């Protein structure tokens, strides 16, 4: 689907961006539609909101999700509330802001963080986190076409590690619907982004070890999130584990656990558990200890089953 109102901008995106995500776009669509910005995150997001309010479809890039914080006010007070506070006169639904997030192996304090939970606290925004290349394309196209503003977090680890066949044509994956990544009957594991792969690996390990069958849900969209899919799964398995890279306290796992505990209270076989980053700054050399790993998820599965 061609939309001449789509514009792409951000720091260094003109020559492909630091992660080469926009490679070749400027040659194909021209400098007036694909251009570099100064290092001004607050300005970039405010600019995108203004362009979207005029009916354009801006796709802005924040080079690392760690740098998104200066723009927090623009997301919270301008973007998220534009439709509501104007009684539907205006909106900035055309806007999509992409930001690479998460661990990358050596990123340290300021190139590794997962700030998604901050944005899940803001009605009016949609928060999307794809779990792989095929998912990323379908969800990104859906986000760009979506009539609400979207914050789109891309797991930067996967820029280099993920290998997958991706359809060449146009396709979209609906925003707001979770994906059943693996079917199972004993434990439900909810994850997003890079952690979906970790959950799947842990599920394979416990299946092989002793036949514990895990259902893995790729949440895909964190706000508003697909409670129904998670509820149906936990109603079946009676056990819930949520895995995310962000620090555990006030992470989005807390919201999922609270909501599902209420909805599935009498069907739970064990207390819902979170396997998350620790409440520390994102560490440099301790990254392998900090990031939820397959063994940590495996342990949590065993704990849940033995409870």
């Amino acid at each position, binding site marked *: 689907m061609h939309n001449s109102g789509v514009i792409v901008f951000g720091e260094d995106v003109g020559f492909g961006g630091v992660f080469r995500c926009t490679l070749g776009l400027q040659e194909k669509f021209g400098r007036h539609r694909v251009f570099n910005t100064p290092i001004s995150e607050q300005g970039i997001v405010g600019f995108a909101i203004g362009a979207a309010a005029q009916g354009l479809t801006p796709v802005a890039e924040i080079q690392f999700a760690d740098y998104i914080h200066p723009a927090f006010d623009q997301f919270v007070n301008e973007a998220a509330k534009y439709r509501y506070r104007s009684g539907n006169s*205006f909106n900035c639904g055309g806007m999509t802001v992409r930001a690479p997030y998460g661990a990358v192996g050596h990123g340290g304090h300021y190139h590794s963080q997962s700030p998604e939970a901050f944005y899940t606290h803001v009605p009016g925004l949609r928060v999307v986190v794809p779990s792989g290349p095929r998912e990323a394309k379908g969800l990104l196209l859906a986000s760009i076409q979506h009539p609400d503003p979207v914050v789109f977090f891309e797991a930067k680890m996967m820029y280099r590690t993920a290998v997958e066949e991706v359809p060449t044509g146009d396709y979209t994956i609906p925003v707001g619907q979770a994906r059943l990544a693996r079917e199972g009957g004993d434990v439900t594991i909810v994850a997003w982004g890079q952690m979906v792969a970790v959950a799947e690996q842990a599920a394979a390990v416990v299946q092989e070890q002793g036949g514990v069958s895990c259902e893995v849900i790729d949440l895909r969209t964190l706000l508003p999130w697909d409670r129904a899919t998670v509820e149906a799964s936990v109603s079946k398995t009676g056990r819930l584990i949520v895995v995310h890279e962000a620090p555990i306290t006030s992470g989005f796992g807390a919201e999922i656990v609270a909501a599902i505990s209420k909805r599935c209270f009498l069907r739970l076989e064990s207390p819902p558990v979170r396997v998350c980053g620790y409440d520390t700054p994102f560490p440099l050399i301790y990254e392998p200890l900090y990031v939820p790993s397959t063994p940590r998820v495996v342990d949590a599965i065993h704990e849940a089953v033995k409870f």
Partner: protein
Amino acid sequence: MHGRALANALRRATSSRAESSAPVLNRLWSRNQQTQAASDDSSLLEVDVVPYSTHRIDSPGTTVNTTKAELQQFFETMYRMRRMEIAADMMYKAKYIRGFCHLYDGQEAVLVGMEAALTFKDSIITSYRDHCTHLGRGGSVLEVMAELMGKANGATKGLGGSMHMYKVENHFYGGCGIVGAQVPLGAGLGFAHKYRKDGSVAITMYGDGAANQGQIFEAFNMAALWDLPVLFVCENNHYGMGTADYRGAKSAKYFTRGDYMPGIKIDGMDALAVKNGVAYAKEYAVANGPIILEMDTYRYHGHSMSDPGSTYRTRDEISSMRQLRDPIERIRSLLLNNELLDTAELKKIEKAIKKEVDSAVEEAKAGPLPKEEMLWKNIYKDTLGMHMRGRDSKTKIKLT
């Protein structure tokens, strides 16, 4: 007494008074006898305005053309704005209006002069002091008053309140609640004008308080880098909340603070000076890129309703402004001195506007409240199947 601020204000006041009261400044003539005979309203009048200060740009001319019709329209619009804000003040004190409310009286010449140089295809975004912006963009007193009272017949259906008026058909992108946060949006609005090559500009308004926000400079840089048609309009009313401009800004020469970007300082108490400066700046911006316009103005009321406006400035200062630089009185004397309207005619206009405002107030009071279901509407484009409990547990309000 704030010596520096007051001295500056009075200096400006004295010089402008001298100019506006000098009878030789204004002369009437007509393009031809027929036009004059057909309609005095369109006869041209030349008025001199106080010189502009400029930064990296030549000054606009200081002789401004106007007509009786225009002056009368300025008078009516500014008087309507003034009466509306005074009514808002009264309604606030009577508790018909609650919450946060920022009044514009004193600054009317800025909007009225600006709109005279713009079309409704030019877009405007401003801060929370936006009641009169709505009027300037073609809105009605009723829409504003009903919005202030949270009524469904308000400008934003009662959902936005004082700080959030919008007029989509006339490209008014709103009142924004966070100091300075609308400025990067204005750069985005300007980009869209350039992208579509529609020859229009984005007016991005902010106050002298907001001028010290970091994101302003991000927006300046991007707009200048990409030659966006943006007029950054700094309404310098000399107090960022309760702090005098020079106490909050290392340089209170806001028109120079774009550095590489040109700027013009305009007498924001003179609608004609504003009209002339904005017309000049618009032409510049469409051809070249952004420009800063500092409007030297003054708010009579405090920052908001909780601020009496008298703790950080003297009553003398306020009354001097009213006596010497009032934007409505300036236009009134032009109309009278040039014998375009007499006192009785002006009184008649004032009476009609007072009546209009009074009936808008009554109509707003009688207006309906928004439906409860609006609580959960317009968060996202589609409602998410939410429902809410009513006061008693049996009542559920469904969203459509």
